[in-house]
Each structure stands twice: as C-alpha cells, then as structure tokens.
C-alpha cells in the first residue's frame, strides 16, 4: 500500500473548498422490530430475538410497525420536512450473508419525509455562527444482522476463515436521514459536520425516538467528502467514510479526508469514488470497497407491503405532540438558569439537561440541581462508567435531598452520604438518612459538651479567639465537626463557640 501524503490542513483549505454530505442511520427505539414482533433489546444472546419474518424464512411476510412510522414522521416534522401524502416501501436487492432475504426493505424514490433543514451552531471566528443544513430526505428501512469474523489475526473481514452471524439486529427499524450537499463551510467543515451530528443526536433524544448511542451503533454516520479547487464550481469526486462511531470521529474523519484528498489532488492524482473506513486509533481512513462498478440494486415497489398514506389529522396530532426543539430549549434554559455558554455546553455534554430540569420541576432550585448532577453525581457516574441517566437515582430523589439541605437537616457533606446510600440501593433519601443516622446536630445541649471539650483540647486557638482574633474560631468549628463526624450544624456551633469565649 502506498503511503499517502497528507496536505497540511491550512494549505488544503487555502486551495480547496470541501463539500460534505452526511447520511445518518438512526435505530429507532421501538419495543419490537420494524416488520415483526421480535424484541429489540441490545446485547441479547445471539439469535434469540428472531422469528420467521426477520430470519427471512420462506413464506414469512413483513407487517409495518406503526410506532416506527410515527417516529419517522416525528423526525421528519422536527427536521422541518414535508410528509409524503402517499409513499411505498421498495426492495433494495443485493446479496449479503447478514441480510436474511438478500434484499433490504427500504424506500427508494418515495421517501416518507422530504425537503427539510436543521440549524446548527458552531463557534465561529467572531462568535457563534449558525449553519442551516438542508435535509434531502428521511426514509425508513430495516437493519441487518451482525457478522463475527473468525480466524485471521484481527477479527476483521479480511483474512477471516469463516464468519458467524447473529440476526438479532436484523429487522430493527432504521431511519436514514440524508443531507443535501453542505457547501461553503470552508475551514469549519469538520466542526459543522460534528455540530450537525451533535444537534441531530440531541434532536433524536428530545423526540424520544432512539437512544442514539453511537458506541452501540444506534446512531451511525456515513460522511461524504469531496473537494473542489477554490474558484471552481465543479464538485470533485467524493468518498464515503462509513460507520463513524463518535461525534469526535465525525469531525476527525472530515479533517483527515480533506488533508488526504488535497494531498492526492495536489500531487496530480485522482480521487477514487469509494467507501472508506475510519480508524479511531490513528484518526485516518483506509480504502474499502470501490464503487467504480456501480451496484445495480434493482429497486422495485415492495409487493408484500401496502403504501403508507398518512392522513393529515394523524400528522397534525404528531406535530402537536412534538417536544420543544433542543435549540429553543437550550436558549430558554440558559436564560432561566443564568448559565454561560460554557456551563450550558457542559450540562448538555453530560446528558444532564433532562435530569436537571426534572429535578427543578420536583422543587429544587436550578443552581442546586445543577450542582448535584454536574459534580457529585457526574463523578459517581464516571466512576461506575455509566451514563448519568443510568444512575439508580431519580430526579425526584435528588430534589428531596436538596430539600433536606434547604431545611437544615443535612449539610452538603451529609447529603453526599445520602446519595451514596441511595445509589447503593439502601432506599429513599429519607430511609438512608434515618438508617445511617445522618442529621445535622443543632441542638445546643448536645453541642455544649462537645464544645467544652474542643475548647479544652485547643487552648491556643481558644486564647486567640478570646484575644479578638475571631478567624481562629474556624479551627474550633472544624474540630467540632470532626468530633461529630460532620453532623453538627456548623453555623450554630460557631455561634456557641463565640458566645462561650466572649464571656
């Protein structure tokens, strides 16, 4: 394999203008598959979520999952698309061992949703910059099974002795979202690509149509990149980088393709229209299947399924049920909670927006709600290597802990212990506090003896306070807290100490 010479990014951008196109596959989060009643749980034992339909057994027939249609329409509406009055499924014919029927039920020239857009924001040179990404189409199709390549050294397809196929994923509903060519983004092309994927993921989350976990493949991006010389309006040959599995990789794969293609073009070479694979470890892409001999998919209308003709009132019902769009929501939250752009971004990236909002709805103030989720609970989620939302604690419970703090029953240190107990499955915050005996001691009688002992043990500090150096009381309060294992009301302890030493 010849070593490719990459052109430095700035130089590449000075000479060429990138044109992007992004095809995103979203696995819908329906309970059952697209065309049969098999479950869709991720990670089930191989070939246990299959039936005659999704195995493509002779004689079986597909029946469309209504929820999948509704999700697709919702996605189309959220992307400002028009919804087709009448459309059909089509068969895309090609042979592949992980595709049970050797055709994929998809949509061809009659997609359910067409002509939309999504606005995405990036940090431009002079502040925030909005790019409108035009959406060509949103259509439905079914996923394939998964092959495990056995033998050879790498588990990759090349050099394998044989493959083992699990059809659990076959027939899971997929929505494919295809952009129109994204032009005139210049050096920001990688950022725009990433911002688009990020915004799309947020939108899918907000719609509740998919868990959009890129690492599990429930959101997969294929990124098309081509370059045209500056001053030209003739698009170049494009490559398609497949299955880019993180937002960061979307950005890096675009950057790499720009540098790689520019290097080839500058050397007098020619870009081959092909599929490429992105490698997370090196940040580079390598050649896959050449598309020089165009596939002939022999699309034709799927005779086993009848056309879909969504009635206007059905569409309007779905439109009325759409949640607030992520961009609008972010603007509102930013204003309501008084966040900076950076703080908001952190909340969004942490996947904490919903949780904080729910915690506020359950009675906590915004600052406290954000504090708990972004600090203590984020730390614990990281330690457990789970998403924030997967922690075994509800927003209502977080709000309850905060209410206990506000009421003076807990301080922050005790609150953290309550969280620990709840996450350990010891019960509700109240049950944990009761069982562990976590409650601030503010009773003067109980504190008096401890304070006397602390003053006796810390004569130096006590003398300083007596001499008017009030700051020295801090050490005494600390000692009280230590003696009570943090359960004393620190404010009350301080008052009592000052009272005692002023007399």
């Amino acid at each position, binding site marked *: 394999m010849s070593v490719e010479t990459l052109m430095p990014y700035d130089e590449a951008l000075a000479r060429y203008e990138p044109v992007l196109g992004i095809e995103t596959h979203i696995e819908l989060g329906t309970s*059952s598959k697209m065309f049969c009643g098999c*479950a869709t749980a991720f990670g089930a034992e191989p070939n246990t979520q299959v039936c005659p339909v999704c195995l493509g057994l002779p004689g079986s027939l597909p029946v469309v999952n209504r929820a999948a249609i509704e999700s697709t329409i919702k996605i189309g509406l959220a992307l400002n698309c028009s919804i087709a009055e009448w459309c059909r499924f089509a068969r895309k014919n090609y042979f592949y*061992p992980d595709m049970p029927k050797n055709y994929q039920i998809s949509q061809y020239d009659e997609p359910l949703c067409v002509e939309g857009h999504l606005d995405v924001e990036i940090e431009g040179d002079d502040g925030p910059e909005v790019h409108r990404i035009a959406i060509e189409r949103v259509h439905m199709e079914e996923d394939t099974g998964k092959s495990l*390549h056995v033998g050879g050294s790498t588990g990759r397809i090349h050099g394998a002795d044989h*493959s083992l*196929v699990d059809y659990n994923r076959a027939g899971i509903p997929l929505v494919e979202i295809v952009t129109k060519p994204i032009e005139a983004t210049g050096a920001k092309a990688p950022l725009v690509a990433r911002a688009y994927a990020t915004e799309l993921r947020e939108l899918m989350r907000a719609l509740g149509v998919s868990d959009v976990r890129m690492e599990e493949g429930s959101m997969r991006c294929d990124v098309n990149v081509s370059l045209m010389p500056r001053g030209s309006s003739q698009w170049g040959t494009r490559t398609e980088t497949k299955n880019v599995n993180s937002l960061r990789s979307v950005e890096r794969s675009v950057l790499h393709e720009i540098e790689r293609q520019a290097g080839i073009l500058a050397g007098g070479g020619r870009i081959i229209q092909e599929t490429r694979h992105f490698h997370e470890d090196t940040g580079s892409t390598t050649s896959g299947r050449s598309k020089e001999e165009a596939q002939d998919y022999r699309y*034709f209308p799927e005779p086993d399924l009848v056309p879909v003709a969504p009635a206007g009132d059905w569409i309007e019902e779905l439109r009325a049920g759409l949640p607030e769009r992520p961009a609008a929501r972010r603007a509102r939250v930013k204003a309501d909670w008084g966040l900076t752009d950076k703080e908001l971004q952190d909340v969004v990236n942490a996947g904490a927006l919903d949780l904080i909002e729910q915690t506020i709805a359950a009675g906590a103030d915004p600052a406290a709600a954000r504090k708990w989720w972004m600090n203590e609970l984020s730390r614990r989620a990281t330690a457990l290597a789970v998403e924030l939302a997967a922690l075994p604690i509800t927003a209502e419970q977080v709000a309850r802990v905060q209410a206990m703090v506000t009421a003076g029953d807990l301080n922050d240190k005790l609150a953290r212990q309550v969280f620990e107990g709840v996450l350990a499955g010891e019960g509700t915050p109240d049950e944990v506090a009761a069982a562990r005996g976590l409650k601030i001691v503010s009773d003067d009688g109980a504190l008096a003896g401890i304070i006397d002992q602390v003053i006796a043990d810390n004569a130096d500090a006590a003398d300083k306070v007596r001499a008017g150096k009030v700051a020295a009381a801090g050490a005494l309060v600390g000692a009280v807290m230590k003696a009570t294992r943090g359960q004393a009301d620190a404010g009350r302890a301080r008052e009592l100490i000052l009272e005692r030493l002023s007399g």
Partner: protein
Amino acid sequence: MPITRDEVAHLARLSRLALGDDELDHFAAQLDVIISAVARVQEVAAEDIPATSHALPLTNVFRPDEVRPCLTADQALAGAPAAEGDRFRVPRILEEES
C-alpha cells in the same frame, strides 16, 4: 436487439448463479426468445397510464408496537447448514457490506 452471452453472464452474476458456458449459451438463446416475446408490452403507449404495483388499493396496514414470542436459538438454527455457538456459521465473506 438480441441479448448477448455477456449480458446473460452479467445477469447470472447479479442472480448469484454459477453457470457453466453451456448453460450460458442455452439460456442466452432462450432468454432472447422470451424477451422478444414479452417486449410486446412496449406497444402499450402512454405516459399517462399509472403503474399498478399492488392488485388492490389498500393503504396504511400497520401492527401495534408489541413484542411477540421469538423462536429459540435452537429453533432458529435447526435448519442451518452449519452453526457454531448459537450463530449461523457461513464461509468467509469476501465483499464488504454495502
């Protein structure tokens, strides 16, 4: 326009049929006759005639999003030419996924 042997070889490839030279010749002759016979449909003029893909004009046939019992892995694999560890064992795959 007669159908050529090369075209038949292309059709065989698309249909995933490993045909020998004799078979290709045989099918080329027959397909040529058949295709000239069925080409009569082209006598039907008219842009304005809609195409019919389905015998009856049904629309919007859906099922509720409900999970139904699946086959067991043993049932799924019962007819498999080869299996290994609850998966279908297939020969090495040359081409990459589309």
